[in-house]
């Protein structure tokens, strides 16, 4: 049977406001699965033109697949969101790039024509499920020195990056972090971020129900001076602080992906077209460098160069790892094509959910920038990987012509 490949488009994406993990966080008593269900429900609410039975897959990522993030979350989220029983689902884990992988997985399925419409997303309730909960690392990792011991502690891998690239100073990192906070505050001020948020009813036995409508982690107005005084928990006199890294957060994301033909047929908006993607492994103890080879591979697959990328949504797990990427590609620390609304340092980074946040935001940037043809979403991944997805802007005049 001759196989016809399909174009894959990003229809829409939403996320919950992100919360601070822990007892005092706004989602302390709200279930993780409920967070992702709210996202799926919001997508359905925003797209009445999409018949529920046309959704042929629900892939949901979570790093810690235990308790309310376990039990084949994608399938259960589908059922609990009111999708028909005929809609299948599954769970995904690629640590921080869980949602990104959920997107590329279902896109691949769409690409080869196995399905036409899917939902992909991710959730991480780091309050209920701290990173590393219940893990049982194989003793060979240490015995055979498969990876450096520091590889399993993300903050230490960030310090390792400072060692590898001494020119990426703490000062540069702090400056990047301040900018991230400033850009997010501006985006909030302009009402841009809110459009992609799903209000979430927050349960609390003592405080009663509330409604989360904005991110909890941002610290607008953060200054360099403030950041310079923070502790460096991963190394005495080190570089990585709570100020120049993403925090521990709760949140969820979800998006709709479709074949271009199905989007046309159903009248779904086309907000991005997927061009190429790549995941590449690196040394686990410097996992933050992962986006570099992943992006190079994705560019090569697309036949593009870095100069042709007009907008970047890079996950800010650590300022130093974003800077390592920018440095590599010769992009300035404050290049305005990069993270126009700030990044995870300000919004928070509920691990497996973040990939779709990058995409939702890139889609919004595309709408504002029809002059930009290509954009990149990229992120580093624990245990030494990077992920990159290149997208094309449908609002660009050249869209759809030979890339």
């Amino acid at each position, binding site marked *: 049977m001759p196989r016809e490949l399909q174009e894959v488009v990003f229809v829409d994406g939403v996320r919950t406001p992100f919360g601070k993990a822990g007892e005092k966080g706004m989602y302390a008593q709200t279930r993780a699965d409920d967070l992702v*269900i*709210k996202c799926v*429900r*919001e997508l359905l609410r925003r797209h009445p033109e999409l018949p529920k039975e046309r959704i042929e897959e629900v892939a949901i990522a979570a790093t810690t697949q235990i308790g309310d993030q376990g039990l084949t979350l994608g399938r259960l989220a589908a059922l*609990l*969101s*009111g999708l028909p029983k005929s809609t299948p689902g599954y769970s995904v884990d690629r640590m921080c790039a869980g949602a990104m992988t959920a997107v590329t997985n279902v896109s691949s399925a769409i690409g080869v024509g196995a399905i036409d419409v899917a939902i992909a997303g991710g959730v991480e309730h780091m309050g209920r499920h701290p990173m590393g909960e219940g893990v049982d690392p194989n003793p060979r990792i240490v015995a055979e020195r498969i990876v450096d011991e520091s590889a399993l502690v993300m903050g230490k891998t960030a310090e390792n990056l400072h060692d590898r690239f001494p020119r990426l100073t703490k000062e540069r990192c702090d400056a990047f972090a301040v900018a991230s906070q400033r850009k997010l505050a501006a985006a909030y001020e302009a009402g841009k971020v809110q459009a992609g948020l*799903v*209000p*979430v*009813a927050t*349960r609390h*036995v*003592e*405080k*009663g*129900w*509330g*409604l989360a*409508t904005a991110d909890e982690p941002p610290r607008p107005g953060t200054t360099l001076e403030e950041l310079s005084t923070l502790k460096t928990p991963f190394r005495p006199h080190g570089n990585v602080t709570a100020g120049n890294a993403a925090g521990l957060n709760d949140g969820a994301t979800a998006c709709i992906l479709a074949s271009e033909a199905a989007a046309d047929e159903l009248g779904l908006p086309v907000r991005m077209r997927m061009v190429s993607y790549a995941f590449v492994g690196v040394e686990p103890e410097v996992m933050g460098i992962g986006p570099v080879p992943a992006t190079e591979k994705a560019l090569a697959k697309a036949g593009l160069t870095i100069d042709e990328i007009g907008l970047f949504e890079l996950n800010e797990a650590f300022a130093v790892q974003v800077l390592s990427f920018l440095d590599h590609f010769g992009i300035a620390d404050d290049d305005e094509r990069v993270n126009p609304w700030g990044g995870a340092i300000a919004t928070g980074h509920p691990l497996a959910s973040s990939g779709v946040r990058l995409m939702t935001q890139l889609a919004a940037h595309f709408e504002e920038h029809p002059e930009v043809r290509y954009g990149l979403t990229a992120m580093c991944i624990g245990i030494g990987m990077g992920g990159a997805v290149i997208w094309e802007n449908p609002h660009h005049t050249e869209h759809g012509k030979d890339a």
Partner: protein
Amino acid sequence: MTTTTQAPQIPTEVVTHAPVQDVVLPGGAGVLALVTLDNGKDHTRPNTFGAESLAELQTALDGLRARAEAGEIQAVAVTGKPFVFAVGADLSGVPYVTSRDQAVESGRAGHRAFSTLSDLPVPTFAFVNGAAMGGGVELALAADYRTVSAGVPAFALPETFLGLLPGWGGCYLLPRLVGPANALEVITLNPLSQNRMLAAKEVVGLGIGDVLLEPADFLEDSLRWAAGVLTGAVTVERAPVDLDDEVAWDAACDAARKTALLKTAGKAPGVLRAVELVRAARTASREEAFAAEDEALGDLVMSDELRAGLYAFDLVQKRAKRPAGAPDKELARPVTKVGIVGAGLMASQLALLFARRLGVPVVMTDLDEERVAKGVGYVHHEVDALLEKRRVSPDQASFLKRTVTGSTSKDGFADADLVIEAVFEEMSVKQQVFAEVEAVVPAECVLMTNTSSLSVTEMASGLAHPERVVGFHFFNPVAVMPLLEVIPGERTDDATLATAFAVGKRLKKTCILAKDSASFVVNRLLGRFMGEYSRIVDAGTPVEVADRGVAGLAPMPPYVLLGLVGPAIALHNSETLHRAFGDRFHVSPTLKRVVEAGKRGYYATDERGRPVPDPEVEALREQPESPVQLTADEVRAQVLGAIAEEVGLMLSEGVVQAPMDIDLAMITGAGFQFWNGGIVPLLDREGVSERVLGRRLLPHGVASVPA
């Protein structure tokens, strides 16, 4: 409340807290103060309103009043904890209310708090997210608007079922919201129809809720809807209620009153009072109406009928779940296959019940292929009916049809863990059946008899293992009647008895331990009741007079009940009891003739299915030479006196563990009334137990107002 006979201790209130959080509404609609009702327990202990809970709600709402006046908030909403909105007044404190003033004050406290919500100067909302009953519903009614989650499992004003009435605004607000007919359906009709609850869809259908929203994001959607109401994007449409149409209003109330009288014979005070409050709601001011509700609460809370209702409620909610006298449940043996001797109607009903509830193979046996086929056919037919009503899925139906099989041989019992006989009610027949069964079954197989009157001990006496025989007495129709009498014989061992209770529980029946004695509990007491009634009628008192005398005791007049039971069975029961206990139990010559004539009851039915006198039966009636015509009061005194005497004897003989078990049995096995507490509280209340037995059967305060 308590059903022990020890001095009651006032329980500490599980307080429903009322924390408030501000929510910024979408679309620039302003700030909504969201009140959450939450007692900090899970859904198995729903939110209730006791004195302290009402005080907390009052404080929260008073604070919001100030904030609303200051312009800080633009709306107020109340919602519940997961799965529960609120289920009304905390009734656990009622047994300790000893003065009418206390009762009236509890009414006022509720009215004050709920009216504070109504009177806020900003729009108010109830987001009914889960179960809502009684005062919970009334709080929702106090708000301007109501959203209802499609996941709400039960929404009701069940007060009149217990002998109370909706006294926190329900009798006034509901009829003015949805009209008297819809309101009375909820306030009186449903409670008197096995305490029927509304499903979420009906709540909106009746106009009580303004909008039905899906449960997955109910609160978010409710807030979005509320914002729409505030901005004008959502228009709330309600069917108008015509307060000037006195005729229609009164007609609805008259109809409800008539139904209530028919169902309660006027013996349950709450429901009639509720109808009159609804009648008055058309013209009364809110203050007048709420004051009238307070007074009604004062009267009803201090009525023995309500106390008896709460006692009965406690029996079926709590005592029913922990059968008194049952052995350690750890001793129960697993049941993986069931045998049933007989394939008649009772046996077939049992087969279906065991198959549905236990999910194990069930083998029915009978003497010939024809009977076996008929029994299995009955089960298949019933399964098809269940499938049609969507009570079972096609897969479940397929399973049930395959798991119930029939045979003329008892060989299929060889690996059964339990065999129950439902053959002809004759000792020699049953003994023979058990002997045959014992020859086939494994050593630990429990043998059950569904006898309604024969001695379990005697039935087991010829067996090699009499210790594994136990009585397991169902009531007809088996699928509907909740009661199961469990009767150990003299030699029944604990493992057998524990298995019987465990199986009873899995069958979802209310199990009561009864001593091996003629007709056990329900049939004995019902037999005494029917016998005494028949004795009176046979001696010359007209049926209408006799019926007035016993009105409100059983769910229907005795001769109507007799038609339901079947004259032959009733006669057999009375003869058995007469043989066992002598002339205390009257065997009616009229009944004998009715049975001989092959009549199916005392009444014929008219075209609308109502019982009417049957001239053929009238001709069979006993014609005493010198008729004795009693008054209704005399009938009542004689019948209740007989029942009291029998209750006294049953207690002294140890037929049951306690008077509460007699009531639990009569409520679940014979449909006796909540407001009578079954029967014992009525005997105490009317002074019959003191007159006949020289003592009360339950201390003051257990099922009555404390002395």
